[in-house]
C-alpha cells in the first residue's frame, strides 16, 4: 500500500515535472509563427519587424524557463505570435505601397506621352488646315448682286490691285485706278497678237478685276516710233481689243469693258529718250471710280 502510494507520488511528480517543462501551446504557436515570418518573402523588406518578433519570442522563452506554464509565459508567447504575424503584414503593406507608387509613376509617364502625341496631332491638323486655307484663299468666287457682295468685292479688289504692283504700275488718277502695262511685255513690235508670256501677267490682272463691278476701259497706246503715224491708231485699237478679249476669256464680264485705241496722240512722256518711246507703247487698263448708287 505504501509502496504504491510512493510510486504513485513519484510518477505524479515526474509527470508534473515533465508536464511543467513542456512548452505551452501558446509558446509552440509562437515558435511556429516566428519560423514562418523568418522565411516569408513579404518580410524580406522589413527585417526590423522580424527582429522585434524574435525579441518577443526570446522574452517568452525566458519566461518559460523561469516559470513554465505561467501566465507570463503564455501572455508573452501570445504576444510573440502576434509580432511574427505583424512582421509579415508590415512587409506586405510596404510592398503594396511600392507597387502603388510604381503604378502612379507609370500612369503619369504614359499620360505625358499621350498628351504630347495629342498635341503633335493637333499641331499637324492646324498646319494642314492652314495650308488648305491658303490654297482656297487664292481662288475667288463670283459674288452675287447686292451691296454687301459689292463691298466685299471692293475690299478684295483693293487688295488684288495692290498685288499687281509687282508686274504693272497701279496708280490712281482723275479717271480712276489705272493699271499700266508695258506694251513690249505684251506684244511683239508692231504686232497685236498677245505674246505667250503676256498671258500670265494678264491672268493676274483678270484675277484682280473679275470680282468687281466697275466699268473698265482698256486703252491701247501704240509705239510712236517706227510706224507710220496713220497705222498707230489701228494698232493701238487692235491691241486694246486683244487685251480686252483675253480678259473676257479669263473671267472679266464683257459688258463692263470697252477697248479703245488711243494711237500715238497721248504719249506719257517725251519720245526723245528710248525710255520715253517705250512708254508710248503701253496698255492702260482704267478701272473707273465707282459712282455712288
Amino acid at each position, binding site marked *: 500500500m505504501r509502496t504504491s502510494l510512493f510510486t504513485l507520488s513519484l510518477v505524479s511528480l515526474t509527470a508534473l515535472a515533465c508536464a511543467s517543462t513542456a512548452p505551452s501551446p501558446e509558446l509552440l504557436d509562437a515558435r511556429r509563427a516566428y519560423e514562418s515570418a523568418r522565411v516569408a518573402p513579404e518580410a524580406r523588406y522589413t527585417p526590423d519587424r522580424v527582429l522585434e518578433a524574435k525579441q518577443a519570442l526570446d522574452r517568452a522563452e525566458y519566461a518559460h524557463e523561469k516559470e513554465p506554464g505561467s*501566465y507570463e509565459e503564455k*501572455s508573452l508567447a501570445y504576444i510573440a505570435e*502576434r509580432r511574427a504575424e505583424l512582421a509579415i503584414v508590415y512587409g506586405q503593406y510596404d510592398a*503594396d505601397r511600392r507597387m502603388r507608387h510604381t503604378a502612379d509613376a507609370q*500612369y503619369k509617364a*504614359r499620360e505625358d506621352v499621350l498628351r504630347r502625341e495629342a498635341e503633335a496631332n493637333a499641331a499637324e491638323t492646324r498646319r494642314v488646315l492652314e495650308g488648305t486655307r491658303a490654297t482656297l484663299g487664292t481662288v475667288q468666287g463670283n459674288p452675287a448682286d447686292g451691296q454687301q457682295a459689292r463691298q466685299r468685292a471692293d475690299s478684295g479688289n483693293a487688295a488684288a490691285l495692290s498685288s499687281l504692283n509687282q508686274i504693272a504700275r497701279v496708280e490712281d488718277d482723275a479717271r480712276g485706278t489705272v493699271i499700266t502695262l508695258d506694251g513690249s511685255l505684251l506684244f511683239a513690235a508692231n504686232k497685236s497678237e498677245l505674246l505667250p508670256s503676256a498671258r500670265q501677267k494678264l491672268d493676274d490682272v483678270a484675277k484682280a478685276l473679275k470680282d468687281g463691278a466697275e466699268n473698265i476701259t482698256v486703252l491701247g497706246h501704240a509705239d510712236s516710233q517706227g510706224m507710220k503715224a496713220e497705222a498707230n491708231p489701228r494698232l493701238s485699237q487692235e491691241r486694246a481689243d486683244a487685251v480686252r478679249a483675253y480678259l473676257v476669256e479669263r473671267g472679266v464680264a464683257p459688258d463692263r469693258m470697252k477697248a479703245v485705241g488711243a494711237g500715238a496722240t497721248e504719249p506719257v512722256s517725251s519720245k526723245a529718250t528710248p525710255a520715253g518711246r517705250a512708254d508710248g507703247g503701253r496698255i492702260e487698263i482704267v478701272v473707273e471710280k465707282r459712282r455712288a448708287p
Partner: protein
Amino acid sequence: MTFLQDDRAVLAPLRALGFAALLVACSSTRPLPPNYAPTRAAISAADAVGADEQPRAALHLKLARDQLVEAQALAQRGKSEEASLALDCARTDAELALMVAREAQARADAARAKEDVQRLGNADSARSAE
C-alpha cells in the same frame, strides 16, 4: 509606425494621470496599470481605420477588446502584473488589427492604380489601331 508614435505621444501625460489616479483611488477601486490608456488608444485607432469591416482585422479587434475587459477584471482583483500582461496582449492585437486593415486598403489602392495604367495602355493601343 504611427501606432508606436501614438504610444509615445499619449504615454507621458497619461502616466502622470495614472499616478495621480493611483494616489486618489488607492482606497476605493484598484488602479489600472499604466499601459491601460495606450491600450485603449490602440484599440480606438484600429477601430477608426475600419478594422471591423475586414474579417481578419475584426477578429483581432475583438480579441483586443476582450483582453481589455479581462485586464480590468484582473486589476480589480489586485493582480496588477497579470493585468499589465493582458493589456500588452490587447495592445498587440489592436496593432495587428490596425495593420491588417491598412494593408487591405493599400492592396486595393495598388490594384486600382495598376488597372488605371492598363486602361491608359488600352486606350493608347486602341487609338493606334484606328
